[in-house]
């Protein structure tokens, strides 16, 4: 056994590069005999072939396999057609899951981009810009799980009349004496919002950094010209800066959408999806590892993929355009 795995390791480390080199060597030998225009056309494909082969084995195959599994029953022994998908869109619990993802999608993205933009604009005008930006960006450096822990402290709840040890309840009860302390994570009417706030806290730094860089790239002359023409600060922002940085806003937004659709860690750490806070990724995890329902888990995975791919393509296209501009 040990010998076998040692041989395997040696083959993997030396054999694969050697094999690839040999492959390219042979390809070049063979290809050089062909006429030049044909050479030019097929060379890239032959060079790409090993990469494409690896990609299809490790990426394409699992995706297709998941797609197939999503049409099968819980232990993948029976074909049940679209039943898994129908359950996603009819089951009461599943509809709550979808609603939550929609809430995350809309409010998380909207607030994160807006606040990120606001901070980017404001920090552009002060001397302590670097410090302020570092502070806002700090949560990005913290793992989602740690962020969950941090915010569990923040949302801590003690019954009314006892001293609050959670920061949020403490601040609100001190500032507004009539305020009733809330169990932020357990009250079904606010717990989703409480979780979304955590997401916003983490991701605003990301939006801010990219938008700030983009604002710095706005040509000074255009802004000056607008000011000379007597435009107010708001007019300068909405009529000049905003249109110029629009591509960056789109990129930030799409990146955030991709991330928020997959949101998992925050919910998993803070509520584990109880009391109506579950999102698609959490549900998928539970279907897979708690209920052992492979079909349902795969269907949810496919749903996520289908939701994310268009946004992803848009994002890639945008990146491409930006590359062309520069």
């Amino acid at each position, binding site marked *: 056994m040990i010998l076998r795995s040692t041989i395997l390791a040696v083959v993997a480390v030396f054999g694969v590069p050697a094999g690839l080199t040999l492959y390219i060597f042979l390809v070049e030998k063979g290809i050089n005999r062909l006429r030049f225009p044909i050479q030019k056309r097929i060379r890239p494909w032959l060079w790409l072939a090993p990469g494409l082969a690896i990609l299809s084995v490790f990426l394409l195959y699992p995706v297709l396999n998941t797609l197939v599994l999503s049409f099968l029953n819980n232990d*993948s022994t029976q074909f049940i057609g679209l039943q898994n998908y129908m359950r996603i869109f009819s089951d009461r619990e599943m509809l709550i899951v979808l609603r939550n993802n929609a809430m995350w999608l809309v409010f998380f993205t909207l607030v994160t981009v807006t606040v990120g933009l606001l901070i980017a604009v404001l920090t552009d005008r002060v001397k302590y810009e670097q410090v302020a930006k570092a*502070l*806002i960006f700090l949560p990005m450096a913290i793992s989602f799980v740690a962020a969950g*822990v*941090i915010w569990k402290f923040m949302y801590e709840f003690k019954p009314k009349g006892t*001293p609050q*040890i959670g920061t949020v309840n403490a601040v609100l009860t001190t500032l507004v004496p009539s305020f009733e302390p809330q169990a932020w994570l357990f009250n079904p009417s606010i717990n989703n919002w409480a979780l979304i706030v955590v997401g916003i*806290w983490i991701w605003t730094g990301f939006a801010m950094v990219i938008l700030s860089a983009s604002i710095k790239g706005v040509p000074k002359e255009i802004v000056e010209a607008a000011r000379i023409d007597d435009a107010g600060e708001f007019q300068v922002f909405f009529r000049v800066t905003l249109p110029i940085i629009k591509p960056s806003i789109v990129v930030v937004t799409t990146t955030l959408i991709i991330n928020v659709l997959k949101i998992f860690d925050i919910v998993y750490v803070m509520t584990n999806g109880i009391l109506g806070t579950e999102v698609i990724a959490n549900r998928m995890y539970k279907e897979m590892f708690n209920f052992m329902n492979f079909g349902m888990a795969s269907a949810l995975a496919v749903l996520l993929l289908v939701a994310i791919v268009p946004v992803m393509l848009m994002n890639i296209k945008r990146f491409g355009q930006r590359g062309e501009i520069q």
Partner: protein
Amino acid sequence: MNGERHITGRVIRFVRKSLIHLILLAICVIWLVPTLGLFISALRPRALILNTGWWKAFDAPLRFTMENYLHGEPERIESKLGSEPALRMHILASIATGHVGTKEELMNFIDSTFFAHQLDVWTIEDKIENVLNFLMEEEFVTGNGHLTPTIFGKRTSDLYIDPLSAVIMRDALRKDGDEIFPHLHAICATPDMPKLYLRRGDYEYVEERARKTNLLVDADDYEFLLSEIKTALLIEQWIREVSEDKIVETFGVGPGDIRRKVDHAEWLIYSMKELGKIFNKDKAKLLTPLILRLRYGVKEELMNLVSLKGIGRVRARALHRSNLKSVGDLKKVDINRLAGIPSIGPTTARNILLQLGRKGERIVEEKTEESAGQSSLTDFR
């Protein structure tokens, strides 16, 4: 006029600037507070974190600690006596050894355990009552005022098995049937046997076997039943001399898992045999050879050979194939022929004959390739 405008401009700019500063300051504070709270909490003792907010950390008296980093709390030891299997075993043991003779003595005894030191005994009084009733009903213990162990109770306690396992074995022993597999399933159905989980590909063959077999033990849960059957199947393969590699592959377990299941099986089959002496002598006879077969993983025909030191399932099979089927055959065999058998070799041959009282025999040095000890990586013993 011009100067006045200049001043108003500056005032407006100042106000506007301070608005920006104010907003930024507020945002920075909001963004920083959660992390700050965690940072300070990390340096506070546990009891304080649970009772006061982190901002109280700066009130006198200051109580910061590096405890959470340097001297983490030692892991808590918790008494497991509160669980029913543990209670069953220990209550029976304390009665079987004659340590306690009445219910009061039992309660006094439990009062002096580590469990009582950690938790209140009254929390498990119901459970103790249940266990006592169970032990009486299943006839481990008799007597109203004075608790006396029965032979069954004593034996169960000596064997160190869960009384519930003993009940399952007893009921299986009382049923007819002399096939081996149902008995393997019976021990796999006891709580003392760690069970294998089913993977997706397992259902088919496990379910088929479940249908075909007349089981001695009924299951209350179908999934559990399948797990028990799968575990029993692994053990059956082992005593049918299926190679370890094959078992590893078929059941998706590690080699260590095989050892673990088989060791448990040997202990439980031994226990079942011992209980068989009380309840069903015929079954005791049926189960006795299984103990050795489980230890060495051999079919019945090799049992005689594996009793020799240095002979395991592989060598015993090699000897058997060479028509040496018992210790008696080995007593007569020519040492050169023995040494020439694959996987035996001169050293082992000498060892075997030494055990049979044949000393000082010479081997004509004629090393065949096969006899040069281990012939392949997987073919040891």
